[in-house]
Structures are given as C-alpha cells and as structure tokens.
C-alpha cells in the first residue's frame, strides 16, 4: 500500500511540474489528456479502485480523488494564466502610434447673413410677427408707386434702381430696392390685423466701401385700428435689447423723412468707439441702426385699405450692417466674395441654433 501511496505522490509531483512547465495551451492540453483523459494516468488509477477491498478503497479513494481534483485545478489555473499572458502579448504586439492623425472630419459653417436673419425672425416671432415672402424682381407699382414715391421721384431714377428692359406693354420690371414690396403684397392680399416681417435680398446700383449692389433687409409692418408710435417704440426697443444681447441699451428716435411713413423716424443706439472696438448700448456716441414710422395714409390707401380706419407702423433695417455691428466685421464687400478664410472666421457652427431661452448664442 505504501508503495502505491508513494507512486501517487510521485505522479502528482510529476504532473504538477509538467503542468507548470507547459508553455502554451496545446502542451497543457497534452498533459491534461495524459493525466485526466480516458486513458490518462489518474483515470487508470481511478479504475483500480473497483478491484480493491473495502478498507483499501476507503484509504485510496480520497487520495485518488484528491489527486484528480488538484491536478484538474492546476490545469484550470494554468490555462487562465496562459490565456492572460497570450492576451498581454497580443495587446503589446498590436500597439499603434496613437498620435497619428485621424482622417479629417470637416465641419462647414453658416453665413452670418443667414444667421442674423434667423435671429431677427426669432426675436420678432416672439413678438407675434409672421414671416411673409415676395420675389426680388418686382413691379414699379409694388416697389415705388404704392409706397408713395411721387412719379419720377429721383429714387426711381436709373441712378439707384436696377431695371430690366421694358416688355411689350412698355412696362419694365425692376430689382426691388427694399423689401417693402412684400409689405404691399401682404396688405393687398390679407385683411387687418396684419403683423408681419419680411426679409431678403435687395438691390441698388451702388458700389463702394460701404455699399454693395446687393444687400439684405428685414422689415416689419403692423396694421390695425389702434397701433401707435408708442407701440412702435416699445417693439423696437425690445428688439434692440434682444438682438444685441445687452440688458440696458439707450436708444433715441429722431425725426426723419421717408415717403412711405408719416411721422417718420430713425432710431439710434448708444455706442462706444473708444479703444478701436465698437460696444453697443452705452457710451458717448450715437449710431443710427434703422428707419421707421407710421405707415403713410397714401400707402394704406394704395394698398386697398381705408386710412381713416386703419393705421399702423413699419420699420426696416439693414441685415448686413446689423451683422457687422454685432459680430465685428469691418468691411461689407467680403460678405459676398465666398472667401473660405472669411467664411470660416465669421461663419457659425451648424450646431449652435439661435434661441431666446438659451440666449441667441444657443
């Protein structure tokens, strides 16, 4: 019996040593089969238990089972160790230079004019204005006559207005010189109360450092039976605060002249030009930002409404100019040149949506 016990001890030492020595999973599997496989050394010993006496079996059973468990356990542990080492080796082998550049993901930009028009539409939208639209190519009536420009008014002259050739009837279309024809179209097609804004491209035959033959406007119109200049002041003061995103903006209204409004005014905001940078809201200087007034009775009449009953206000502002004042561009011409450097610098991320809740910077 002792001899057998000695054999078991020797076998265990041998197997454990070989398991430990196995360099890979295949070698380990070889050792496992030799020990625990159907014809393995331990399996063969286990089979001898059946021929033993009860006393022998009582003694050898636990010993053999203990051997089987320890060797089996050693295989599992070794296997896990080998797998871990293999993974480590693989990770090490597959390391890369993480500082290599990724393929470039290009994000484009939204033009400041689009951005500013959206901001304006949003602010006036909050105050109940609907966005109306109209074409760039207009009739003389919509652009001038309806708006109380006297016949042959100098502004209709070739000097300012782009014209097309006269048609068979002798009527010539023109490029709208302001977005006001949309106001005319709205008054002609809708019944008061009217509360609208319009935005878009406008054209004047003018080109220098501060004028381009194409520019953009946002205009507003309210027509009902009671709206007064006090309402106009309130709306525009609210607009200026929201647009420039400053709590306190000092503004003033000055009398001015437009053919289509009476009384007419220009609105100035306080500004500070010291230090070469323009700050809006406070300061010593005034900056003119828009024109406005009460719609001229002749305009209301020309648009098919009764000026004895209806009244209201209109205002108009230059989108490009207000974009420059808010976002700091100093020149107008590059707005229309499509220079990628300018577009990248002054353009806006598509992910920053203007919104009033989070501030216009979104």
């Amino acid at each position: 019996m002792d001899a057998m016990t000695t054999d078991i001890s020797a076998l265990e030492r041998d197997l454990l040593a070989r398991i430990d020595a196995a360099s890979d999973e295949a070698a380990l599997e070889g050792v496992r089969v030799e020990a625990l496989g159907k014809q393995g050394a331990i399996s063969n010993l286990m089979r001898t238990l059946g021929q033993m006496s009860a006393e022998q079996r009582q003694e050898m059973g636990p010993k053999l089972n203990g051997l089987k468990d320890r060797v089996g356990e050693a295989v599992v542990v070794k296997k896990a160790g080998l797998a871990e080492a293999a993974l480590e080796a693989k990770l090490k082998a597959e390391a890369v230079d993480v500082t290599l550049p990724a393929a470039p993901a290009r994000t484009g930009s939204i033009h400041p004019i689009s951005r500013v028009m959206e901001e304006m539409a949003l602010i006036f939208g909050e105050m109940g204005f609907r966005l109306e639209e109209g074409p760039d190519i207009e009739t003389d009536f919509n652009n001038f006559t309806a708006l109380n420009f006297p016949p042959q008014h100098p502004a209709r002259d070739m000097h300012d207005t782009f014209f097309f050739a006269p048609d068979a009837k002798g009527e010539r279309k023109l490029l709208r010189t302001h977005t006001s024809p949309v106001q005319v179209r709205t008054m002609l097609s809708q019944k008061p109360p009217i509360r609208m804004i319009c935005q878009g491209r406008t054209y004047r035959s003018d080109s220098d450092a501060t004028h381009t033959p194409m520019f953009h406007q946002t205009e507003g119109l309210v027509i009902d039976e009671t709206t007064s200049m006090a309402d106009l002041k309130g709306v525009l003061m609210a607009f200026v605060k929201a647009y420039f995103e400053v709590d306190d903006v000092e503004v003033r209204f000055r009398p001015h002249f437009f053919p289509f409004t009476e009384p007419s005014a220009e609105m100035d905001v306080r500004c500070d030009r010291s230090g070469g940078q323009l700050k809006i809201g406070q300061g010593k200087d005034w900056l003119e930002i828009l024109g406005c007034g009460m719609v001229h009775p002749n305009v209301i009449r020309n648009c098919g409404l009764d000026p004895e009953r209806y009244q209201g206000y209109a205002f108009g502002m230059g989108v490009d100019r207000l974009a420059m004042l808010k976002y700091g561009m100093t020149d107008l011409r590059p707005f229309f040149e499509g220079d990628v450097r300018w577009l990248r610098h002054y353009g806006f991320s598509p992910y920053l949506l203007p919104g009033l809740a989070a501030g216009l910077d979104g």
Partner: protein
Amino acid sequence: MKFTLSWLKEHLDTDASVEALVHTMTMIGIEVENVENPALKYRPFTAARVVEARQHPNADKLQVCQVDTVQGRLEIVCGALNARAGLVTIFAPIGTYIPGTGITLEPKPVRGVVSNGMLCSEGELELGGDLFGLREKNYPEWRARADQLGLDQAKAITDGGIAELPNDIAVGAPLAQILEADDPVFDIEVTPNRPDWLGVMGIARDLAAAGMGKLITRPAPTIKGKFVSPISVGTDDPGACMVFGGRYIRGVKNGPSPEWLQRRLRAIGLRPRSALVDVTNFLTFDRARPLHVYDADKVRGHLRARLGRGETFKALDGETYEATPDMCVIADDSGVLGFGGVMGGESTGCTESTVNVLIEAAVFDNLRTFRTGRMTGINSDARYRNERGIDPASCAPGLELATKLILEFCGGEPSDIILAGEIPAPLAAVTFDPERVKKLAGISVPAAKSKTILKALGFEVSADEAKKLVVQPPSWRRDVEGPADLVEEVARIVGYDELPANAPPRSANYRPAAASVGESRLRIARRALAAAGYQEAVTWSFCRRAHAELFGGGAGALALANPIAPDLDCMRPTALINLLIAAQRNSDRGHRDARLFEAGPAYLGDQDGDQIRTVAAVWQPAPQRHWKGSTPPDIFDVKRDCLAALAALGAPTSGLQTQDADKPFWRPGRSAVLKLGNKALATFGEIHPRTLATLGVDAPALAFEILVDAVPAPRAKATRAKPPLDMNALMPLTRDFAFIVEEKARAADLVRAVLGAEKGLIADVCLFDVYRGQGVPEGKKSLAIEVTLQPKEKTLTDAEIEAVSGKIVQAAAQATGAQLRA
C-alpha cells in the same frame, strides 16, 4: 448745407450753446453732420512782418528772412517767390501742425540754415484762394523775382506763394481774429421734404418753435420802382417755369461786396466774387431763394423761360452744354443764355464793369431741374434748391431783398417788379382733430399746445366748429398734405423722446412666427450641409449673361438694362455659376479643396413664381491625402451629400430614380438627375469640362443643386404625435448574392428588382462590390449584393429561405439579365 452761428443769430435771438443747438436740431429732424470752429484750427497762427529777405547762401530758390513775429524777430527760411521786405503774412511757430500738409514743424536746418518757424500760404491752412485779393496786385513783383531766378513766370504764379495780408494788420494778431473766424460752422444734411431748411431763416424758425430762442422776423422791404423795366421777362412753358420774376436796376457800380458778406460766404466755403453775385449767393443760403443777375446790357431783347431746342451755350462754369428739349432754359433774342434754376450763362454774366442789371427770381419744375442737373452733371447751389422745391411765394420778396442789398452796395435805381406766370395755388387747408396726435403718435398733447407749435412753424390755425382745427400750411411747406403730417409736426417739436414706449406683446398671446415651408427648408439645408463640411456663401443674384446662357439662362427678360458691371448683367439661372467662380478664386489664392454652398434664389423668369429656392453646392476637390490611404473624391461623394440634404428636407430618398443629367453643363456619364416620378428634385455630378473652361475654373469640379420647392410638402397632420412604433422581435438575417451582368446594366435596376422580389420579407438590399476581371467574361461585370430578410411572424425555415433566394435570382435575371455567379 452750411451756416455759421453768427449767421443763425441774425434770425434767432438765442443764448443757447452750440451743444444745445446741435441737440435740438437733431431731435427736430435736422441731421447735423459736423460742427467746427475754425478758430481752433487757426490758434497757433499769427500775423508777422518780413523785415528783410536775403538769398539763401546754399540754395538759389530759397530766401533767408528776418521776420518780426509774436515771438520777436526770427530767422526763417522761405521758398515763396513773394517773400519780401515789408510783407505782412502768416507765421507758424516750431511745433505747429500744418493742416494743409499734415506736417508738424520741427527745428530742422534747411540747407544749413535753421528755420525758426514757417511763413504759410492759404493752401497750407486749408483756406484756399487769395484771402484778401492782394496777390494779384503783386504779380509784377513775382514775375520779376521769377526772372531773377530763371523760373517760368506763369508757373511761379500758379504755384502760389505765402499769404498776403493787409499792411495795417499788427504783428502777432491771431489769424482767427484777422479772419473773424471765431464762429462755429454747422454742416447739416437736409431731408428732401424740407427745402425751407436750405435757408438759415428756415432753420431758425424751427429752432424757435422748439424753444431755442425767438425768431427774428425781418419781412422783405417794399421798394418802389422808378421806371418800367426795358427788358421784360416771361415763361413760354408754365409747366417748366411756373413763375418768372424780374427787376431791372440801372446805374449800379459793381465791386467787392462788404467785408461782413465776404466773410460770411468764405466761412461756408464760398468764394466772394463781386457785390452783385455775392448778393445772390447770400440770399440762396439765407432764405433758400436762389437768384440770378444778368448784365442787362448784354441781353438781346427780352428774357423768356422755354424748353431747349438742341442749342449749345457756355455756362458760368466755362463749360459748353447742349440744351435738349427736356431742359428748361432762359433765352433772349440771341438764343439760350443759361439753364433755368441750374446755372446761368457766361455771355450775360456780371463783371466789374456792369452798369445795368436784371435780377431773376423764378420757380422751376423741380423734377425737370433734377433731370437737367443729372444730365449735365452740374451741381450748383441753385440746382440743389430748385430740384427740392422753392417757396413759390418767394419771388417778389426775394427780388425786394436783393434790390435792397444791391442798392446798398452798388447804388442804382430799381424798376418795377415784373412777375410773369402764375404763382402755384397754396396747398389746401387741413382739417385737423388734435386728438389725432394721441391716436397716431401715442402721446396726449393739449390742443392748445398743438396749436402753438403749428403757429410757431408758420401754419395758420383757425378753429372749426367740431373742436377741429383748420390748418393752412405756409407757402414754403409743400410737404404737408394731411393730418398725419401735422401729427409729425407736433410730435417732433414735443420731441420723440417724450413719446411713451408700450411694452411689446408676448408670444403667449400669439401664434408663433410661422415661416413658410420653403424658408424652413432652407434653414434645414444650411445646417445639413454645414454639418457635412460645406461652407455657406452668399453670392450675387446676378452673373455674366454669357455664363447664364451656358447654364440654361440668359433670357432677355432677365438681362439688366443698367448693370453695375459687365460681369453682373443678368439674373443667375443657378447659384452654381458664382460658386464655381468663388471656388476657383480660393484655389488661386492657394486655398484648395473649397466646399461651398448657397441656399438661395435662382431666377427662371421675371414673373411671380419664376424665382425658385435652390440649394447649390460646389466642391473643387484637391487630392485627399491620409496615411491610411484615401480615394480621390468623386461624384459618389456629392451624391451622398446631396441625398443626405434631400433626406433632411424630408424628400423620400429611397423612392428616387437616378437618370442621366439632361442639361449640357453637366459632364455626360458622370452626372445624374434624381427624380421623384417625373419631377426632378436634384442634380449631382461633375460639371462639364468645356463649361469649366469657359468659366475659367479648373477641372474637376463636383457639384449638386437641389430644387427645394420640388420636394413634396409634408402632409398637414391633425396631431404632432408620431404613429406607434412597430419593433419586430425576430432576428433579421442576411444572404449574399453575386450576379454577372452586362457592362451597361445599371446597379439601381438590379437593386430595385431584388427589393421587389418578395416585398413582405426583403427589408434592404446593399450593393457592396463591383468586380471585373478573372472569372468574369469580357464585357460583363459582377455586382455583389447583401440582402436583408426580416421575418414578420416566425423564424424562416431553410426551405423558405431557399424559396426567397430563388425569387431573388429570378427577379434579377428578369430585370437585368443577371446570372448568378458560380
């Protein structure tokens, strides 16, 4: 329009400061462009007397002068020909900033001699001209001096010299005092509705109404005529010249006008000429009443206002003009003398020797005056006022005022006044309910106050029965035609600052602003394309007509009659033209690989509805380089971006048909139009190399254009809620197929056929390989697809999968002749 403070005070009794006057002018509608006191500019300059002038030892053309100055006797180097002993001139000490040259004087030797200051010319002080008319007298001396130095005499005179002041001016007298220039000059911008503000009197009237002092009214005198004018005046075209007033004054002695008048004119930048001419200029600015004086002895027969007949004549500016039948002229028996209300003629101009004069005060049609001025390019003070409208009642008073001044300055004897034509009727009185101020301007102003304001502005106000006022506008206010105009008068004098500002309504009370579907889509497209790496540009709506023609546009109705530049003479049929040119400009500057887009209009015609919303994009690709390798961008890159944008706009992209592009500016074989049914939604591809060559743009250029309005509008829904979500619990499975097809077969036809092979089951078809070469016969290609099957009710059996596969192979064969690859 310029005037000085002292001039204003001739009409306004006021103690108000310059600042208060500027503020009030601004707030009543007179835009003040600038206020400047010339005295500030002249402060360092004083009178000095040259005691000795000697040849500079080292320079022929320079003199070294000993000069008595405010700082004592100084040695000053001077290059002026007229520097000579005894001359009183203008001295600037070291450290003085010289406005005319922009230089500050430093103690620097001039050819070895230190100059302790400078003797100045009028030009160096931005004064212009010969201040006291003294130079001309000394021209003989200049000429002699020029001869001495061997210089050209004429050139020596035109190049000028230092200022010559009257001899009796004391050394050290400040220049501002000599010029009596300590008088702020206002420069104002006058709106076209207020020609009365083109006279100082008119400005004073409004300032007085606004509480800035008391208006000084000096009615025109009535000077009795002593005889009947031997020259009569008349108007042959009362539409062009409504009123023609004239008065003859005989026996005048012309000469310089008095110093006060010369100073006043000089202060606002006008050159004094002679008493007769200065009087007309003075009244132009004082009363907004342009006048003209004729040398009566040069007039042949009588003066008539009539239309031009194509004659030419020489105007006072020395230029020869043609009088077309659209222009109003003043003519005598010899022909055209001048343009009515714009500029007189040289032949009858007044000179020093004029003895008999005829003064003209007329009213011309302002629009005709404007056109004449524009056609001739003449910008005169007379035109400026006449084209804006002259007070039609001002002819006789204007003649009386001019007569008074001429008699005072030049003596003589006046004729009776002749007034031909008919003074236009005054504007109708306006019935005005003072409550209107509250209704329109939003401020309560007591009726009595409104009345006071209107009266101060020159309106006649009488009360009607029903508490309404009857308001008669004065003759100089032809802009006032209804109650709204009167509300403006009251409101601007009360002050717009006084108007309340009503809080704007909050959106809660209103529907939120509804932008149109089209406008919303442009906003979406901008975000989609910017996110895809394109930069939004805004380019002109116009382009070169020849370019427009290349892109299917250029119709006559869209060509501008008066383009601003030859390359901007036509409305664009697509934004692609300007984007391609912009991309090339970037490339030329070394910024390659531009990806630009524009979400804006294209113009297909000049009728309403011909302007369409488009999204156009251009990519002028540079080789893409990356260490992992990369393929050159091609039309499939823009196809992806185009489809992504279409999807963002809500277009059903899976149902679109891809057909060859049909416009000739697209490159054949590498461009396609995406259609929904037979409606084109977008085109993408490469621009034709020939088109690019004409535009001067390097190939290749990738592009796409989406016709935003062609994308079907979303259906109006009763609720914002989305339909219930149907999530299938069964696993989808995929099967791969490779087909051999003819080279000309289209992938989309194969994919569409397979998608339709078993509609309930086939969820997706993905074409993942195109192969030509070994194993594929010549002239054919292999297309490999992965088909996704989505079981609906139960897992598919092998037999069912086999059945579907069979249908797929059959459908592919039917549609494209495809053979399953072995």
